[in-house]
């Protein structure tokens, strides 16, 4: 009678104050049937990694606005791996300059979604990356 659910942490690292975009994504992921843990704004990479561990999530989605993604996002991946969460899929949503996309991929961020991305695209991506054993 086991019931598995894909669990997704949605966090907003960095110092900028509003999180409308992150909330919209969080809600649409809920509507796609995921269990979404929403942590709010001004999260440090340490806070994100700690929450990801306690919540035992399958996916961490980072919503970014400021230009700080090049330091914050790889740091999250690094902390996740260091604490033994090798399989957690990390996504970034927001404005990422073309030059940085490859660098982020190299740092272990598998999904990078620009501002125009449809929710369905993100949902499909997650389903693709996280195969829930039947």
């Amino acid at each position, binding site marked *: *009678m086991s019931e598995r659910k894909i669990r997704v942490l949605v966090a907003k690292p960095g110092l900028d104050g509003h999180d409308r975009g992150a909330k919209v994504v969080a809600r649409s992921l809920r*509507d796609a049937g995921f269990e979404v843990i*929403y*942590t709010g704004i001004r999260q440090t990479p*340490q806070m994100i990694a700690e929450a990801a561990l*306690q919540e035992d999530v399958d996916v961490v989605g980072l919503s970014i606005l400021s230009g700080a993604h090049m330091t914050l996002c790889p740091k999250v991946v690094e902390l996740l791996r260091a604490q033994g969460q090798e*399989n957690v899929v990390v996504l970034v949503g927001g404005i990422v300059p073309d030059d940085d996309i490859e660098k982020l991929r190299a740092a272990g961020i598998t999904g990078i979604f620009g501002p125009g991305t449809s929710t369905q695209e993100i949902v499909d991506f997650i389903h693709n990356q996280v*195969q829930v054993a039947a």
Partner: protein
Amino acid sequence: MAAITALAQRSETATALIDGVLHGNRLLLARTITQVENQTAQASDLLHALYPHSGRAHIIGVTGAPGTGKSTLVTALARCYRQAGMTVGIVAIDPTSPFTGGALLGDRVRMRALAGDAGVFMRSMATRGSLGGLSKTTGDVVTVLDAAGFDRILVETVGVGQAEVEIASTAHTTLVVEAPGLGDEVQAIKAGILEIADVLVINKADRPGVDATLRALQMMLQIEGESTRLVRHHGQLLRVESPAAAGAEEQRWQVTVMKTVAAESTGVEELRAQVERHREWLVASGEMAVREQLRIANTLENIIRAELNRRILSRMPDGRMNEMVDAIRRRETDPYRAAADLLHLL
């Protein structure tokens, strides 16, 4: 893009998980909770091994209407407990959407102040179809946290629905959180809430209307207090031998109304002290044994009911259920007769 079978790959052995839980490994604790919440094949072995290590934590339920400040209060209480040198496990429950099966678990937003503290472990849970304000495995997750050695476990219920009965049979001490404001105070207080409150909390005491709420609650306590206590004594509680039954009058727990401003931690240390007094009273009066008995009976009953349900449904011949539904729809039979016929098949 190799598909990562994240969930499938993490199959630590039960032994490794149990060891991890008992020795403070937070990653393995988190994964054990996942197994238990998902009711995997391993879950019953895990619970079997961990159960003997549980029974030490004091379990505190926090319930109340949406937005009254439960998460903020849980955070403030947890900090007080940490200052008192105790470790704290937290479980916060939010509703699963009945339409999509998804859930938005947002209680962490209020719990920033606990970040980075290794003496706290916080887990969000979705109700997953359960209607009682908890999910059906919340009690099991509490058992795991208890076995992991947390001194106090705070359980925040869903803010809507019939949270009352379930939290009261899961927690040792139940806090019912109200907030001042909005309309007729007395009406705003849900029926059934006084029966389960061990402590009533008026949070957001910095808001206008707090004194009106305080008076309303105190009045309700006076009016309903007597009958409530009687129900407790002559109802379920009498089933169990209770030292409190003799000379019960003086030994009765006095439900008090306490004011807090959780956002500023005002009144929260006093609340913590009251919770601890309640715990001491539970032990001294013998009521702790009574509650444990009820709690365990409730758990056992739920497991049996779920398992019977599963067995019956799994033995139902394929398609029979749908045929019956069609027959009922055509008014060839009725739901009761159809159920009897289906059960007869087994």
